[in-house]
């Protein structure tokens, strides 16, 4: 989201309270959504739940094209549309809801750093798996990504997206990585998160922050999504405190809300 628009939004946002009809748009859950998008959507949902802001979930096949930044999810609140976790956090903050106000400056710096770590390693690994691992691309990514579109378009759009992601991977030096190296990175990241979490309830002790929402979104998605191989989720499963962390957030913020198949962490263990 651009700076000017952001400043504008922030200004207006402060004036109005959170409306009852706020909506969160995301791709179709059953047949379309991909691993990385699901993680991002879940992170935003968890964040809004933690702020106890009510939001209605709307599934749209073209959510990606409706979003102002081209990325899902986005929220529609009053007259404004805001996409992705970072801007949404700022937007919500402007409305007077913040999870990280209680932290001191050093903790805020650490929180930002860990959020970048998750984006840098977990998100990139998810993208790598779904767009660069040939078996996954053929069996899962292409059929799912193209599912809402008629015949020639589904292939064209999927290849276009694949080309775009691969170019990005090359630019950040992941283009020539093997899947094992990616798993290594994921393991490293999980280890760091696990170390940091230790025996605390949340990353910064008793109260959840946006970091907790982000980590939950990614780990929960990795743990509960059926892929052709379960190597990725196996890596996460070896850290027991991360699993109980996911379970804790699920119970606390999602219990009773969704009896969805995806919202069941009891599958693992």
């Amino acid at each position, binding site marked *: 989201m*651009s*700076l*000017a628009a952001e400043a504008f939004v922030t200004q207006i946002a402060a004036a109005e309270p959170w409306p009852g009809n706020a909506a969160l748009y995301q791709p179709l859950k059953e047949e379309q959504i991909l691993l990385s998008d699901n993680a991002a959507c879940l992170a935003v949902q968890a964040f809004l739940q933690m702020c106890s802001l009510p939001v209605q979930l709307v599934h749209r096949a073209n959510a990606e094209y409706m979003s102002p930044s*081209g990325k899902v999810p986005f929220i529609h609140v009053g007259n404004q549309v805001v996409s992705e976790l970072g801007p949404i956090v700022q937007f919500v903050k402007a409305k007077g809801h913040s999870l990280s106000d209680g932290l001191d*400056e*050093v903790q*805020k*710096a*650490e929180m*930002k*750093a*860990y959020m*970048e*770590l998750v*984006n*840098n*390693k977990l998100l990139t690994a998810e993208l790598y798996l779904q767009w660069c691992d040939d078996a996954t691309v053929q069996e899962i990514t292409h059929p799912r990504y193209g599912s809402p579109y008629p015949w020639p378009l589904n292939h064209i759009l999927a290849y276009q997206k694949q080309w*775009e992601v691969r*170019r*990005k991977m*090359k*630019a*950040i*030096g992941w283009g020539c990585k093997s899947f094992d190296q990616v798993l290594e990175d994921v393991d*490293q*990241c999980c*280890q*760091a*998160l696990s*170390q*940091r979490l*230790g025996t605390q309830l949340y990353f910064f002790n008793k109260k959840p922050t946006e970091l907790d929402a982000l980590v939950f979104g990614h780990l929960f998605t990795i743990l509960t999504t059926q892929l052709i191989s379960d190597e990725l989720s196996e890596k996460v499963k070896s850290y027991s405190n991360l699993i109980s962390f996911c379970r804790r957030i699920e119970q606390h913020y999602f219990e009773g809300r969704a009896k969805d198949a995806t919202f069941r962490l009891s599958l693992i263990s």
Partner: protein
Amino acid sequence: MAAPMELYCWASGWGLPTVDPDCLTVLTYARFTGAPLKVHKITNPWRSPSGTLPALRTKDEGILSDTHQIITHLRKQKFNADYDLSARQGADTLAFVSLLQKKLLPVLIHTFWGDAKNYVEHTRKWYAEAIPFPLNFFLPSRMQKQQLERLQVVCGENYLDSEEELEKELYREACECLTLLSQRLGRQKFFFGDSPASLDAFVFSHLAPLLKAKLPNGKLQHHLKSLQNLCNYCTAILSLYFPWDEGDPPPVVPKAAAGDGSESEEEPYKRRNQILSVLVGLAAMVGYAFLSGIISVQRQAPSQLRPRAITLEEEEEEEEE
């Protein structure tokens, strides 16, 4: 160790031991750990064994050219700057390195390669003077193209649509990142207490170029200079770990405000270029003479034949005219 590892990196300039942030990371890490490296500071990337800089020639793993790979390799060789850190500090290192890569690196690229004024007056100037003769005409612009591509892909596709807005956004994030680092550092000497770790190598190598380079357009520089503890931190590392690199700059280094100072600096290159151009001219003339047959060499050794050869030449010359 019998054969020390060899590190190839960019030459020193701008008051830094090496001008490239990636090379600086590796070099700083090596200094922190005291790894015995034979450092080749070169100005021609084509002379590096991998074609890119930095590059580390190792005995058992061949040539490494990725910063992280090099550091991992040094770590395996028992040169580990993070040995004393707790697991949680190790986790913090990983997190802050991600933060640097995401927030500060794009701006660093943009400041040195993307900003037109800085690129022309500062970055290209240095590289064009440092890189040896024929390569200096195209290598700097090729490097710029690579860097901008990297920036564009990292920032997303809408880079070209709204360059100005994106620039603002980038700088805002970088300022925020600098402030975060300053807060995290606080009054400590290094990020994790009194001894430097790998995180310090990363932070230092991303900050020092911004601090030391005399950029014509230094938006971010002003912000960095207002964070006193980060400035002191960089200066301390420079004077502690690179005492001689700063004091004894090679002739190309001082890039001061241009003008009379730089005139004398360019003198040796002028003379060399003059000699080169005279040689090239001579070679062209002789070559032409040979090809068009004005001069011909005859291999007949006996001395009595010589007068004939000369007369032949004269005849041909007349024909030409």
